[in-house]
């Protein structure tokens, strides 16, 4: 038993932390949130150049071939920002979906390009009947002479505004299968419209008479694509959870610092047990997320059956981030609601990651199924 990171992981952690502090200071993150221009941008370009986007992609496909725990350590640091961009959506989820369901040719074409950040392949799954079930996928891929024609409306698509390509969940012409098609975002008939409000980089994606080359159908056939996506989601959740852990950690540190320095009634507010309650609730959420996440990462690396842990980690981790932000707002009161303070970057992210890849409610139900209840 050893719950410490390896010396190499500690080095990676501090390298990523230093990089984020340098390239993604609060003012940059606030500007990105305001403009929506996180990608392309100078910090993003530098992030891609580090090679970290290929951390989970095997070396034979141009990545670093790191372990899940290595990647967890790295993404935990990105979560502290929270650093925006299609790092999880493209370089983790889409990469895993291709590894699970792509042909050899597709792997050789797509994975190195994703690792290098040249292609930002963002999954577009959910639709008007929002869910992560294949029954609710109505977008269609039809044969169209020599090509494939894709039609449909994808909604609440996370990171779509950053995409060079969209990994679209589509139904086969006969309606029987749901699979994945890689659609260049600049194809005629594709339009991406940001959804304004409290969401974090959510968009609507319209696909109207979009023609794509048949070589862009994952695995060469619609059948089998959905299971590749599900495998990808299973592998991505622990990484997403690590990102949430870093985010919770940042929110916690921010709240502790504020409660030590904010003076009311002539004393730092952290001396008040009412305020301490919020901090304690927050750190309990943080640590619940941390240890469910890292046990899952360890199971993945050790080749253990991890399905129960994956659902547990997502249900605990997304709840934790959401609750952590709520407790932080109770500590910060008015100051926390001021955009320039920076807490609301996390609050907005916590809401979107709450539902991304399935709400806690969904994963609790899947956990019950997995445990044989």
């Amino acid at each position: 038993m050893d719950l410490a990171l390896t010396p190499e992981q500690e080095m990676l952690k501090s390298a990523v932390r230093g990089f984020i502090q340098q390239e993604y200071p609060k003012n940059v993150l606030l500007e990105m949130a305001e403009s929506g221009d996180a990608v392309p941008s100078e910090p993003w370009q530098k992030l891609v150049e580090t090679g970290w986007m290929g951390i989970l992609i095997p070396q034979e496909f141009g990545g670093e071939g790191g372990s899940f725990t290595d990647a967890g350590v790295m993404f935990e640091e990105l979560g502290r920002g929270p650093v925006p961009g299609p790092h999880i959506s493209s370089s983790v989820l889409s990469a895993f979906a291709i590894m699970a369901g792509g042909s050899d040719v597709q792997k050789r074409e797509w994975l190195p390009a994703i690792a290098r950040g040249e292609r930002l392949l963002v999954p577009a799954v959910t639709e008007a009947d929002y869910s992560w079930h294949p029954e609710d996928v109505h977008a269609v891929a039809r044969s169209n002479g020599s090509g494939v024609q894709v039609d449909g409306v994808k909604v609440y698509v996370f990171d779509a505004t950053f995409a060079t390509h969209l990994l679209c969940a589509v139904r086969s012409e006969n309606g029987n299968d749901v699979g994945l098609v890689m659609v260049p975002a600049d194809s005629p008939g594709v339009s991406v419209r940001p959804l304004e409000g409290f969401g974090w980089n959510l968009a609507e994606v319209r696909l109207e008479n979009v023609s794509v080359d048949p070589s862009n159908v994952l695995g060469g056939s619609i059948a089998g694509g959905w299971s590749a996506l599900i495998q990808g989601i299973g592998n991505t959740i622990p990484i997403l959870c690590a990102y949430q852990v870093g985010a919770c950690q940042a929110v916690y540190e921010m709240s502790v610092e504020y409660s030590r320095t904010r003076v009311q009634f002539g004393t730092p507010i952290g001396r008040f047990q009412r305020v301490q309650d919020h901090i304690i609730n927050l750190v309990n959420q943080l640590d619940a997320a941390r240890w469910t996440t890292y046990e899952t990462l360890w199971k993945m690396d050790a080749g253990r059956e991890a399905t129960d842990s994956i659902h547990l980690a997502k249900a605990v981790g997304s709840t934790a981030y959401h609750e952590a932000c709520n407790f932080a707002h109770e500590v910060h009161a008015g100051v926390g609601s001021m955009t320039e303070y920076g807490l609301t970057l996390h609050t907005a992210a916590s809401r979107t990651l709450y539902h991304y890849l399935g709400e806690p409610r969904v994963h609790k139900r899947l956990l019950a199924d997995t445990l044989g209840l």
Partner: protein
Amino acid sequence: MDFEPRYTQEQEEFRQEVREWLKDNVSPDISHPADSAKSGPEQYDLRRDLGRRLGSKGWLWATAPEEYGGGGLSLDHAVVLEEEVDSYGLTIPPYYDSGGRLGGASIMVWGSEEQKQEFLPKIFRGEVRTWQLLTEPEAGSDVASVKTRAERNGDEYVINGQKVFVGSDLGCDYMWTLTCTDNEAPRHQNLGWFMIPADLPGITVQPMDLLIAGGESGAGSGVKNTVYFDNVRVPAFNLVGGENEGWKVATTHLELEHGSGGRIGRNWMVDNLFDYCRKTNRRGEPLTKDPDVRDRLIDIYMEAEVARLFNLRNYWMRHSKTNLTYEGPQASYFRKMSGLRMSTAILDILGPSALTHDETWGAGNGHMESHQRSAIVAIHPGGTADIQKVIMARRIGIGREVRERAGALA
């Protein structure tokens, strides 16, 4: 990272050895009544006997140094032992021994060499059972305000006072006791710890009438007592850590009691509850098929998993000597509150069958009913849930001007 003990070939052989040994040495007569108050002297004798046998192998306090009667074994050996004993539904030690666990650890840190030689081998070999005595009628959460007086008289101290919520049924051999060694000295500079032989004249033990005798030790205690000291003469040798130095000793004791020792293993109550819900029908279907019940069960499962991981983390931190801050009281707080929430969920799912241990109509052989009581009682031992939060805040560095450090753990 590695969330499981790493077993070498040698340790796997050790597991086989432990398994074989337990097969021969755990009496088939050892039983597990839902309420430990129903566990009589025969059960206690069987458990003490097992404790002595474990102790003579160095397996009772496996990681304690051999020179003091411990096993001198590695953390992973200790984990093997705990896992194998856990498979019998037992803990190490297999009986209530709060003073051995906490007093032993405190003496390891603060005792003189002579005191270590005197007290530790008896504890580590399972020859004695020890209670801890802290709480008094006027000193609960504010434990530093104890009034039980220890006054020097020649080579002895004379002890007078009253302790409550003490120990278990069936007595003990030693009383690990916090006293006031100076009525005039400032707070925290007026305390002293004694290892008191339980058979000294002037000691009276009187059982308390409680909802249930809960404890955090893992082994049911049966009952709790009031203990009266009436001019009890204790050799000065038995004062551990020095006169008026008791608070520093208490920091070690309390650190462990507040959950920093950690724990491995899972919550069997969750398994029992799942099992009960699979086998119990409502409207023609197992309870586990009712969506509301499933939701409740998963909430419980998730909290139990988080509690398991907090305990595992603390176990590792303690044994790898990683610097602890708020983690001990966090685990304790979480365990207490999730236990209470679990009891509510059980009542919600089971209804009135959770409120009786009637042989015909009580659920789960009375374990569900005893959980309804023990979840409430568990809020206070080892520091109330609120006290755990107070300590967490100090350790996080917001409760006081100077951030509090955790107590030394050897």
